[in-house]
């Protein structure tokens, strides 16, 4: 039997990639360990090695092909004794999941959250960008990753005091490629690889900010920032107050937060409620590339310590970003992502995509959702939340994280304390399940928030 060579998944979140180059041709013999092709993901160029020995019978996906889905058969390998010339091209070019017992399940390589990122294109143009952007502004399609990089690069060009430090940010170009190209432009003095020592470099960054520099400290993920949380909270967050306003700490702690995909309990957690509880910190968690760029620029310029929570699953997603010399978004303002009169959905970060998907389903049933993307979690834009509640009298809060002591809980409390008379139904929280994140694909899917759960809650508060 010929062996099917499939497009490999080269990272936990990879869904597709570019087949950049074939290093073998039809008729070549390969043995295990030979490099057969180069595959570009949105993070890196990876080498694709042979696992079995045999003869390359057919190349099914030519080099230079973009957006090759993980699992696509890209070549056929004839085993010893088979005649390569006899092997027909497999008709199958899409994903093949022989082990799947329930046909309705999505492929296990994807998670529910990854599947529910809404297509930005499907929204009306007027809602794509910040309302502050002048009409007729030219737009460019950027990934969240590129938008974050551009924000840092622009601020580094503008202010000599800004530098970035963290694990693999310089020579490796960023573990998630967010700092790509910065070392080349700004050099090793301002783009600094640290040892694996979160507590230490968070402290050094904080001290440098106290001395007047503008550090951007990247955590490879916020899961690792728990090692450093003392400096974020006790050193960066409190000294301005404790010093009677003398000792400022203009620092940005940034990196991916929340669940990625199949990385298990210790690498899948949303820390937004942890940091948002601390007076003295600013906490930002953007969804779109435009917000990521505009808010990161504001965060770098802020005189206050900022915790900037990104989302790995969003890094590769493209959005329209205004082409302006200096596009920044004010900290502390929410954004109405979708307008509707029947139910408010308040959310942030990856929850916005889930809410948009839910809103489409709800619209099909005649329920129009008003979606508020909080964007900044501290200080929280209470007015926007209460204004939306006034409009719809019903609210669902969507959060990719646990419900207990969450941002969702805070929103519910605000609505009860300050919007009680506007409520026609209890505020519902739609969050992840109250368990450490499981690894198994089906269990992970069950644990994560998804648009069907949002739809259910929205209908419940509408008494439908």
């Amino acid at each position, binding site marked *: 039997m010929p062996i099917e060579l499939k497009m490999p998944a080269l990272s936990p979140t990879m869904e597709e990639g570019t087949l950049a180059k074939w290093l073998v041709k039809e008729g070549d013999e390969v043995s295990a360990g030979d490099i057969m092709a180069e595959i570009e993901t949105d993070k890196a160029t990876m080498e694709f090695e042979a696992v079995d020995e045999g003869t390359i019978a057919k190349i099914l996906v030519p080099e230079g092909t973009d957006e090759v889905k993980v699992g696509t058969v890209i070549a056929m390998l004839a085993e010893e004794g088979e005649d390569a010339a006899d092997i027909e091209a497999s008709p199958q070019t899409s994903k093949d999941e022989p082990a799947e017992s329930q046909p309705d399940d999505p492929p296990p390589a994807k998670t529910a959250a990854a599947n529910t990122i809404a297509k930005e294109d499907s929204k009306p143009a007027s809602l794509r960008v910040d309302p502050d952007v002048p009409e007729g502004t030219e737009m460019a399609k950027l990934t969240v990753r590129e938008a974050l990089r551009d924000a840092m690069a622009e601020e580094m060009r503008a202010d000599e005091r800004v530098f970035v430090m963290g694990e693999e940010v310089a020579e490796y170009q960023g573990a998630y490629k967010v700092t790509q190209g910065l070392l080349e432009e700004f050099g090793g003095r301002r783009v600094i690889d640290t040892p694996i020592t979160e*507590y*230490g*470099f968070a402290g*050094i960054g904080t001290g440098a900010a106290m001395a007047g520099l503008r550090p951007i400290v990247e955590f490879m993920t916020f899961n690792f920032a728990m090692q450093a949380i003392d400096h974020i909270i006790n050193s960066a967050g409190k*000294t301005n*107050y*404790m*010093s009677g306003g003398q000792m400022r700490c203009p620092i940005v702690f940034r990196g991916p937060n929340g669940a990625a995909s199949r990385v298990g309990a210790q690498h899948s957690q949303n820390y937004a409620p942890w940091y948002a509880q601390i007076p*003295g910190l*600013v906490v930002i968690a953007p969804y779109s590339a435009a917000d990521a760029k505009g808010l990161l620029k504001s965060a770098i310029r802020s005189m206050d310590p900022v915790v900037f929570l990104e989302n790995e699953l969003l890094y590769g997603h493209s959005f329209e970003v205004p082409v302006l010399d200096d596009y920044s978004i004010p900290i502390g303002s929410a954004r109405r992502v979708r307008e509707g009169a029947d139910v408010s959905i308040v959310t942030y970060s990856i929850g916005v995509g889930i809410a948009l998907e839910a809103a489409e389903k709800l619209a099909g049933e005649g329920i129009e959702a008003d979606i508020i993307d909080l964007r900044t979690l501290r200080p929280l834009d209470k007015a926007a939340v209460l204004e939306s509640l006034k409009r719809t009298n019903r609210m669902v809060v969507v959060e990719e994280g646990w419900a207990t002591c969450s941002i969702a809980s805070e929103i519910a409390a605000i609505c009860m304390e300050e919007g009680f008379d506007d409520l026609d139904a209890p505020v519902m929280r739609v969050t992840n399940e109250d368990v450490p994140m499981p690894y198994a694909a089906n269990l992970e899917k069950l644990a994560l928030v998804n648009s069907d759960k949002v739809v259910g809650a929205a209908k419940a508060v509408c008494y439908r």
Partner: protein
Amino acid sequence: MLLIRRFEEKAGQLYGLGLIGGFCHLYIGQEAVAVGLQSALDGDKDKVITGYRDHGHMLAYGLDPKVIMAELTGRAAGIAQGKGGSMHMFSVEKGFYGGHGIVGAQVPLGAGLAFAQKYNDDGGVTLAYFGDGAANQGQVYEAFNMAELWKLPIIFVIENNQYAMGTSVNRSSAEDQLYRRGESFRIPGLQVNGMDVLEVRGAATVALDWVRAGKGPILLELKTYRYRGHSMSDPAKYRSREEVQSVREKSDPIEGVKKDLEAAGISEDEMKAIDKEIKAIIGEAADFAESSPEPDPDELYTDVLVEQY
């Protein structure tokens, strides 16, 4: 040194009277360390950072005893407007970066100050103090590694007063010769008699020369002793009265200086005049700290963030 001693004695009294609250860690016995080291610094470009036993370091830096005492009593005129208290005092203007309450946190923060000095190429050096207790915190070694790796201009100062709260160095440290704690990071260390202000000053000069020459960090272990408990609420049952008394009698840093001064021909009267002058300064500081008003209630919400959003 005498100013620090008298200041701390007065702070102890005010604590007893309920005028100073919370935690209050006195520096009595350790005065030669801060004075010997900080007298060697360049006030225009060098920086100092320490832990919570910080009154002495501020006084050694020439900060006004009145505003320090007023901070201890939680008054608006305090150096942090009454919001910091004993453990959290700062004077950015004078290059004093705190006053930090979490044991060991000031070490990477200090490395960050030194990072900024190197980044700005301003020729400054940071003095980061910590105790024998903090010397067992992991973050200290994370800071050592990066400081040496990046050749940061920093002097790590271990004030070894021999007790981390109630636990002696020998009971807590596998390597109790703390000046050797930098060895695996290639940071050279010196052990110094922290009860002799001139020896401390000499060590400061050696260390500053090393760091200013661009050779990276250096570690000083200052062997010293605190006469009082860890904080005001510590009965200090972990050591004998005789031990404390013996140090006071044999190696008190102030008595040591007094002998040196006598030998240099300073008369008893001249020294008494200094004592009197210091008593007056402390009396004035205490009066100021007791009589100046508490912060305005409106200050509760100020300085949480710098900007308005």
